[in-house]
């Protein structure tokens, strides 16, 4: 578990993120293929104007249907934060390396900073705001009980990553927790308690 060894990036794969080639950890989840982009784009009603292309997207977010009129390349993170006032998903690196912007798309953890709106289609999106009505999802309760947060900025992303982990693997080992939670940075170093909270929640799910 603890290691001073050089860490090998789990997925050093080049993929396309808009006009920029970046190195990512979960290419399957944050990469936007050019083909997909155009395919999806064409499904929607483009309104051309001299300044750019806007389109109306109907999104399923936290059990509600929301409609936004944005450019098709807009990342989900900015739809949530700027257009819908859902600020639980955080901006930190913008390249899918830190996990602060993690939300669920059909129960899978994705980095919303690189996930374009045109890619969403009919997928159901869950953000930290929609995880539970009263903030009482077992992971949220465990986060409080273990008293995980320090500055707290990364914690919504950590929780959403943990939700996806427990959906996939309800009784993870320490190693399995580390493997999935390595996608999320915590600059305050609250990792021990994040791990403890996930273990606590896994006994209650």
């Amino acid at each position, binding site marked *: 578990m603890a*290691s001073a060894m050089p860490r090998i990036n789990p997925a050093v794969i080049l993929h396309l993120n808009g006009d920029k080639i970046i190195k990512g950890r979960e290419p399957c989840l944050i990469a936007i293929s050019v083909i997909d982009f155009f395919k999806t784009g064409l499904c929607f009603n483009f309104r051309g104007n001299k300044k*750019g292309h806007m389109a109306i997207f109907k999104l399923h977010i936290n059990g509600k249907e929301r409609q936004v009129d944005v*450019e098709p390349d807009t*990342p989900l993170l900015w739809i949530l934060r700027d257009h819908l006032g859902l*600020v639980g998903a955080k901006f930190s690196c913008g390249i899918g390396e830190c996990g602060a912007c993690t939300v669920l798309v059909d129960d899978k953890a994705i980095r919303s900073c690189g996930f374009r709106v045109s890619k969403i289609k009919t997928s159901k999106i869950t953000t930290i705001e929609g995880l539970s009505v009263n903030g009482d999802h077992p992971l949220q309760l465990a*986060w409080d009980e273990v008293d995980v947060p320090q*500055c707290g900025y990364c914690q919504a992303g950590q929780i959403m990553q943990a939700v996806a982990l427990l959906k996939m693997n309800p009784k993870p080992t320490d190693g399995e927790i580390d493997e999935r939670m390595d996608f999320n*940075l915590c*600059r305050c170093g609250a990792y021990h308690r994040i791990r403890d909270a996930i273990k606590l929640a896994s006994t209650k799910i």
Partner: protein
Amino acid sequence: MPAPNKTSRRDFIKLSSLAGGGLLLGFSWSSAEVGTSVIMNPANFTGELGFNSYLSIATNGTITIFSPNPELGQNIMTSFPMIVAEELDADWTKVKVLQAPLDTAKFDRQLTGGSGAIPHSWKRLRTAGASARFLLVAAAAKKWDTDATACTTSNGYVIHTLTGKKLSYGELAEEAAAISLPPDVPLKNRKDFKIIGSSPRNVENKKIITGKGIFGLDFYREGMVMAMIQRPPSFGTKVKSVDATAAKAMPGIIDVVTFKNNVAIVGKSTWAIMKARKAVKIEYTKDGNIESSSDHDQLLVSMLNSDKATERRKDGDVATAFKQAATIITSEYQCPFLPHNAMEPMNFFADVRPDGVELIGPTQTPASARQATAKLLNIPEDKITVEITRLGGGFGRRLKFDFVLEAAELSSIIKKPVKVIWTREDDMMGGSYRPAVRYRFEAALDEKGNLIGYKLRGAGINLNNSTRPDNFPSGAVDNLVIDSIEHISPVTTGAWRAPVTNFLAFAEQAFLDEVALAAGKDPVQFRLELLQKARTKPAGAIKYSIDRMETVIKQAAEKSGWGTKKGVSQGFSVYFSHSSYVAQVCEVVMEANKPVVKKIYAVSDCGEVVNKNGALQQVMGGIVDGYGHAMFGKLTFKDGAAEQMNFDQYRMIRMSEIPEIEAHFIDNGIDPTGLGEPALPPTGGAVANAIFKATGTRIKNQPFIDEPPFKTSKGF
């Protein structure tokens, strides 16, 4: 807001009716200990929250405490109110905490830095709580027609000891209004502490885990615009020309404005701005030295040989000691620049209007930010308000207020409320780094292995004094000289969690192990002998507690089973910084021929532990931070520009890489000192010393990952 009336201590607490029932017990955090205080004008707070420092008790018993200092993860919003609630004997479950905005009339030292808030405010906060409790008891005694000494308090109630009758604080608050306060209110005996020393959870947990918009970047106000700023990518350059024609024509863009060396792209949404930013064409021209890390490396080496260093401490006759030495050990240690990388990138909201200025966002220094804004805009300070949001990390970066000034200046130019947002790249390229430093240590041993001479020179890039001349082993060596030298660079630097000591402690503690080895002594025994020398025959002034340092050393050795374990290599380190003492033992085992850090023990003496849970969190976080940055942290420059711009190029520690941590605290009842920083400095030394023990390879430079035994000539 009318100016508060200065008044005498006797009138310290003034009560006034709240719109919703109950009373406000006003106190000034700044002067709870001294002779003057502030009376709140009742008109000031009616129906309005957030501009006065006060403790309010509602008729339902709810107690509201304003927390003045910026919260960035050090848990001050929980610890401060705990101290007030303790002396008040409040029911902690009914205490509500709110962040106070900047108010220099009511609070002093309203900043987060230097692990200084708790020691500064300890007595002030206790007095505030005790004063309110005194009045509530007096009110109950009056009601029961008895003496105050016949009453006790518990959990938000005053209790009549004989009869067991009780009244809640909410019921008593109004009666307490008519009672005046004696000059000296007694404080509790620490054996009666119930809240101090307990482990309540972070008061903002619920907001954090449900994604409420409590951080600066979350702030939104109808009508505001957003902006990103392109700053010169290379230190030592300035803007020559800007072509923003294409960017201005892009959707969602309001304007592109150039001021100083900033090109601000102003728009309606973050994504629109991010896209338009790429379309702005900016040319830069030279405006100072253009430096690369290779230049810095050479400079640091040559600075150590300079004759222009500034002397920081001198004891005895160093030259003679080195002449008489049987053994001389010389060693050099170096660290690179580091960005702070707070998870929340820099940002601030500013609304500069003809009638005044509003500043809202995450800052460690609201008062300095306001002062600088007043100067920049030529506006009196009392026309500027500062609201402090929760900070998504600070680590010293938010002690600077460059981002506040940017927002204020931009708002004054575009005449709109604006939130300036930095990207990660802006943050990592934007300066205020932990400075790069190189140290040279020299030690003289006599034939018996006694340390008779010690020299330390620090060379820093944009760091005036890279030493802490009074730190251990100063005081324990008869002949000692410590000096430092600085290179002024266009690369901007600033405080980084545990400034100076974040690297100096590693270098000192690793060097002390080198000396112990040369003297043929056990590292723990060697340190204890030095302390004994400082106690019995001190050299010069001693500015640390020998007893406290000795205690943490012995406890860490005991808790870790120092020297008794098989198959494990242990490394020791101890450091006194920011008024607290922390000793650490790191355990390394060899796996596949490489050293693996398994566990770190820490024994901390920060005096009275206010919040056990919070203290543990600070120690564990500090160790993970210290270990992570010692192992991986490195920011390099090429032609004046940072070469690492985001987390794909800059490695930060992740969950699978953390060692087990076992933390202990010394329970000595001494007035508390801070803990936001002190656990970080010793970690690098403990780790490097353990790696040496395991491999025989002495790591002298950070990041460790670039050094043997991790990096070999064959690569990883």
